[in-house]
């Protein structure tokens, strides 16, 4: 009984600090490598990035899981010499509202927005704000694709699988060639 009591107590302590379970996710360094290689197959990438690939890692203020995902993704990017053949710069940006995100993407010529857990309630607004802006949004969790984020990665049978919301990709001028699209699972909203 003491075992169970301790278990329940620990759960109680943790329960209010957590967000949606993601299970096993694709390791960040593998996501980053895939993104870098994929960029070479995005016909809009060169024009979008210019001379420097700017990556915004979007976090939910006060959300520990969001912070954790952001730190790991940023660390993985830091080990990448070049992103799609270009130098890159990444920044962790607290999400305030969708218009501010859109403004930042436009003003700073952001090429990639990485959406971390904790932002689930904002996905629809993020989708709306980024529609019409030339930017690739990438999901930290595969469930986000189809809820407003263009690209994500899932583990299927112990291997990474790319997932794309093709309609939203077109809305954000993400233009992958057919050769890589056939490697992706296309989902619809």
């Amino acid at each position, binding site marked *: 009984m003491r075992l169970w009591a301790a278990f329940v107590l*620990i759960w109680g302590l943790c329960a209010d600090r957590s967000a949606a379970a993601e299970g096993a996710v694709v390791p960040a360094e593998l996501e980053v*490598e895939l993104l870098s290689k994929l960029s070479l197959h995005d016909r809009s990438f060169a024009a979008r990035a210019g001379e420097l690939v700017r990556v915004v890692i979007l976090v939910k203020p006060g959300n520990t899981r969001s912070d954790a995902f952001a730190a790991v993704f940023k660390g993985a990017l830091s080990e990448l010499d070049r992103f799609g053949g270009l130098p890159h710069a990444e920044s962790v940006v607290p999400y305030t509202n969708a218009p501010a995100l859109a403004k930042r993407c436009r003003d700073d010529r952001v090429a990639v927005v990485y959406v971390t857990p904790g932002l689930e309630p904002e996905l629809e607004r993020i989708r709306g704000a980024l529609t019409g802006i030339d930017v690739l949004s990438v999901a930290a969790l595969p469930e986000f694709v189809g809820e407003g984020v263009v690209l994500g990665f899932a583990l299927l049978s112990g291997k990474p699988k790319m997932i794309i919301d093709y309609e939203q990709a077109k809305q954000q001028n993400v233009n992958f060639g057919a050769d890589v699209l056939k490697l992706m699972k296309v989902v619809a909203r």
Partner: protein
Amino acid sequence: MTRGAFLAHVAIAALLLAATAHAGDTSEIESLLDENVVTTASATTERASVAPATSVTITAEDLRAYGVRSFADAIQFLGLGVVVSDPLRTPDVGARGVLLENDDGKHFLLLVNGHAINDALYGAARFDAGAGVPLELVDHLEIIVGPGSVLYGSNAMMGVVNVITKRARDYSGGHVYGDFEPGRSYRAGAGAGVSFRLFGASSELTSAVEHYERFGPDLDFAPQQFVQRAPSAFRRGGPADGVWGGTARDAYFAQAESGVLRLRSGDFEVNLLASSYRRGLPYSTETTNVDFDDADSWERDHAVRLDVRHEGTLSSVVALSSRAYADAFGYQRRLDAPSSLACLRSDMTTCTYHDVGRSRTIGLEERLSLNWLRDGRLVTMLGVDVRENWAQAKEDALDFDTGQPFAPTAGLLDAHGSIVSPYAQQTYHPVTWLDVNAGARLDVDSRFSPVLSPRGALALHPGRTTTFKASYSEAFRAPTWSETSLANYRIAPAAGLRPERVRSIEGSVEQRFGTQRVLAGVFRSAWSDLVALEPLSAASQIELQNEGKLPLFTPPGIAQFGNVGSIENYGIDASFEGSVAEGRVRYGVNATEAYTRRTTGADRMPLPVAPELFGNARIAYAPGGVLPTLALAATYLGKRAADRPLTPLAAVPVVGPLAEFRLTITGAVPHVPGVWYRASAALAAPATSAYTAGPNLALANGGASTNAPPPLGFAPVDRASAFVGLGWDFGGGQGK
């Protein structure tokens, strides 16, 4: 061709194929998408190339394409460094040249979604239809080859097999399927997956149930003509001609039911597993005398397992994983045997032994992860696993004809034990070309002295596609309740048993060329305190009977478990796998050669039944669209020693290689959405295995021999089989 030359040819062929593989524009992406991501080796999600052990991933697509119907099949046809030998009871699973006959999976740890399946009473895990997992629900198998006690404790001596079931997004809707193997078996199952929101949390439920039934084939055993000191009839109602053997039509049967339910909601996950497995005992072995072709002799496992876990992120540095689990396991065995072999009673024809055992386990595991640099490069894992076990067992000796006991109930066991297992693991990724993993686990078992299981591993990446690995690891297996405490009509209790230990060192190099991968590795392991049955001396038997630890009546041939052996083992692994034509053609070759010697007392000899050279090869072509996928797989077991001499005091014979080929065709039924089919045919040669079959007179007369019995025969191999299957995925359309 020598074995070395064979492996060299495999390696050269792999390099040539790799060099000639088409490198398309997307080959680098395809290469990344083909990388295995594992979670078992270090209890965290990582690329297989950085995992601190050799790992093999077998996907659901592979299981379907290659006609796999059990985990043993998957290991045999698709695994690297692992091997299966089928005694026609439950398969023996080995690794890297170490395979122990009649092992019941005790030296491999089987996990389902991270939950240990090996039971507390016998330590057994089934890798056939009795594994307890509907195969169509399996997303993939992760096989960690080599010691794995550092995170998982007992049983993980040869390795760890973790069965990961499908997520709802990959199993949405409903699914029904069945297959039929004429003259042999059928299987039917159903499942469903659904995603939903529960109390505002993203949630999903996947579940499946399956029934499997085997009713053949007929098995032919070479007749053995006995003249004296043997029953006149080895089969109830059979001719009193003193002949053991013939065709067994009734005893090779099995029924298995399994069900899995997996619920995820928010940060919680619940796994509920239930299974039942009843199987026949088709022939007498070195340790068991049973009526020939007796449908009334059987074993049965049943189990219910519950696992509830929670993942909490306390900060960007600290994460806490909590797990509570409970297992209930039951076992029964009914064994009918001629009285003159099994109980020496002149007033009955057949004596029946009925064993009943059960165990209960509850446990709690807490695991703290400290991500010091917040980016995953320096992570400390601290955990503690606390469990309580209860075990009960008994054995009744009955007159088959009256059903009445002819001796008191024996083997009464009612015991309790606790295990506290703190563990720690440190991972460090200081630079892009280096990964370090070090850890240790201390298992403090109330029945034994504490056991420390350390592991240290390095992975070097001189280039993005090259990995060198080196690791040292130790593992153990705690003697089971059945080995230490059971006292029945065949087994004497063995207080003072020590845990088995293995120490292993290994190194490997892996090179990727686009979508091709070549791996070569070397290993060396040393096993000590191996637990095995040995005959109990008359003096020890009397002593135990006087102390009340053994029944006063026991049939001849009573034995006792002891720490009686050690094993030395070294060898090489090689693997090549890849794909061409944009993944439409996939192939692979795995080979292992090992030198293994077991020392028992003054004897040093090869392990019975364990091949020193083994491997498999496969190729599949998936043209896509409505065209079917064709897949051919082959497995090879090199020559190996039989499990015992064919006649007393003779040398143990060496049996020749065994090869099996399997051709499978799978595809979608045209114009019928969601319906798929599978058909498979297999051929194996030769006709017999390395397991001897026939009554064991040593069990009947304590080893005394005045008249030479006829030579034993070998158990048969099912040489030709085929099955067809049909499935329907509906309401979700993502059943693959």
